[in-house]
């Protein structure tokens, strides 16, 4: 796997060396992700496997290479090699109706291609499946797990509780890794985190323009993965590259999807393996995915004098946390801000949280006149991807939206 990431890094760096104009924001993003992937497998620094809302700036400030486990599932899917790992998980008794992000990670661990962690930090948000994976990894690697219990709402007691728990997590990590959290490094990480947050806020705001300056692939899997760069200069550089490029495009009147006619929101996560969905939407229907649910800033800058409280507030602010009505309000707000014509919900196979909220999301968005297309897609396992059936649903949805606009 390390070689896989090295090859991507070398390929991107060579392209940029030969043609500096090819250094697009997406390439920069892909380069930094690949470097993170390489670091995970290089064995030079301790590794922490985490849940999605873990406080990555703290771990980054401690020079611990940290990542949420679902990243590996997405990566294996994008390589086209995920089937082996899913089958491995099945052979170990994990049912095929579970989340394939998690199953693929379990299969990868069974086959020995998950880097050995020093620590594991589970988060109870966004789902319990993630915690089960963390606990399985803990058993496989014989390591201890720290669980960050994320309360369901942002009351001051809950913020205090979570801030205290994050402090406990730091102690846990320090004890298991022997690495102390340096106060100055921590403050620097908070400053970096806030700068990245502010720049990303500007990037997302630019994406609201009609027509949108970017296309449906440039901010694919973006917000959620950017959280891995919290507290780092890398994160600021990526965000800055996007801001610079989008500003330039807006000034020059560049349109991400030429002749943009339909503006779409993508709910939850994208399909991770190679597929033609975005290309089809853009080329055949001039439809642009202008906002992904996970590309938004839902938290305030963190006060360096009280960083644990700020980090706790951010973890609590994730719209996946708490009742689904909160998530629906968030989606409605995004639809209005980004002037969305319709939304696509892939309903990732095996995602209980997604399945349970699907109907309520559909109804909620219909209230503001935004139709939702519910697909039945396994975002990881291409073997469950019936392209013809998906195309028919997408095309019919586009025809309906085109007709509505005309």
């Amino acid at each position, binding site marked *: 796997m390390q070689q896989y990431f090295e090859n991507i890094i070398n390929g991107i760096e060579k392209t940029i060396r030969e043609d500096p104009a090819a250094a697009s924001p997406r390439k920069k993003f892909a380069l930094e992700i690949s470097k993170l992937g390489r670091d995970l497998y290089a064995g030079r620094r301790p590794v922490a496997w985490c849940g999605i809302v873990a406080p990555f700036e703290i771990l980054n400030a401690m020079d611990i290479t940290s990542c949420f486990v679902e990243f590996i599932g997405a990566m294996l899917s994008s390589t086209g090699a995920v089937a082996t790992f899913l089958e491995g998980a099945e052979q170990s008794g994990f049912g095929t109706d579970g989340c394939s992000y998690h199953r693929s990670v379990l299969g990868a661990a069974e086959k020995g291609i998950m880097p050995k962690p020093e620590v594991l930090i589970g988060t109870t948000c966004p789902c319990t499946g993630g915690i089960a994976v963390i606990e399985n990894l803990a058993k496989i690697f014989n390591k201890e797990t720290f669980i960050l219990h994320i309360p369901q709402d942002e009351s001051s007691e809950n913020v205090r509780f979570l801030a205290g728990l994050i402090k406990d997590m730091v102690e846990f990590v320090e004890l298991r890794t022997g690495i102390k959290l340096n106060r100055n490094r921590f403050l620097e990480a908070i400053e970096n985190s806030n700068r990245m947050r502010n720049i990303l806020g500007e990037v997302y705001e630019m994406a609201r323009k009609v027509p949108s300056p970017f296309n449906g692939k440039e901010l694919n899997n973006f917000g959620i993965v950017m959280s891995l760069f919290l507290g780092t200069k890398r994160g600021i550089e990526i965000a800055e590259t996007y801001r610079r490029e989008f500003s330039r495009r807006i000034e020059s009147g560049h349109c991400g999807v030429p002749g943009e006619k339909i503006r779409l929101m993508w709910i939850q996560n994208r399909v991770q393996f190679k597929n033609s969905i975005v290309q089809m939407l853009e080329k055949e229907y001039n439809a642009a995915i202008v906002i992904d649910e996970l590309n938004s800033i839902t938290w305030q800058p963190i006060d360096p004098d009280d960083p644990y409280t700020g980090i706790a507030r951010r973890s609590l602010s994730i719209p996946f946390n708490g009742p689904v009505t909160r998530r629906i309000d968030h989606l409605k707000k995004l639809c209005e801000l980004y002037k969305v014509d319709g939304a696509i919900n892939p309903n990732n196979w095996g995602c209980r949280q997604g399945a349970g909220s699907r109907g309520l999301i559909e109804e909620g968005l219909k209230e503001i006149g935004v139709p939702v297309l519910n697909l039945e897609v396994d975002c990881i396992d291409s073997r469950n991807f019936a392209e*013809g059936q998906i195309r028919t649903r997408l095309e*019919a949805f586009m025809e309906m939206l085109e007709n509505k606009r005309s």
Partner: protein
Amino acid sequence: MYYLGIDIGSLSCDAVLIDHSERIIASSVVPTGARNREAIERVTEDVLRSAGISHEDITSIVSTGYGRNRVEKRDSAVTEITCHGRGVMAQKDGIDLLIDIGGQDSKAILFDENGAIKDFAMNDKCAAGTGRFLEAMARVLQVDINEISRLDAGAKGSVTLSSMCTVFAESEVVSLIAEGIEVNEIVRGLNKAIASRTVSMVKRLARNTSELSAAMSGGVARNSGVVRAISEAMGCGIFVPPEPDTIGALGAALIAKEKSKKMSA
């Protein structure tokens, strides 16, 4: 001026030829089989022969159905959802909802007051409750697929199928036969099961089905037992056009005419 609509479904390939006044001049339905290009050629030749015209007389062709992109001579391809919607609107005014059950999928289409598609729902990947499901059950019951629609006559409705999975339902039907349950009761049970699944899909679009002006298209609409079961489950009447399996092709032909008009405007 003639306009051709071709609907390449998983079980049948249909063509409808209309003239400038939207009058149906000819239609044809053939099994799609394993080579859909041959089926496309056959239906095209059929309607041309019936109408006594040649290819050159056709102003525009719109294809639809899962094989819509296989029609080489198409001017454009439009999904079956849009085509069935357009087709049924030409058959009856004031339709609120269309149920189309084809060979491998089923769909419910909700219209607004202007007849435009407001929303739609489709079955998931499973083919339960579609034409293929009925075909498999007819095979187990050793009856002709065209005959199955009449076989529920006089049934009391005492049989309930617990599974709609084609494979499990098949073994369940085998068990019912072994228990000596009459064929009409089993067929009624199958119809009720299809109705239950279809109504679940419809209710995703409209909670109150009893006041809907509903219609049904697709090959399964020829099965009066299924239509009756769906009608009972929805609590409303269901309009079935005289040629329900060619509604998609008719819609495609009408869209071909509209697109052609727009192009020349």
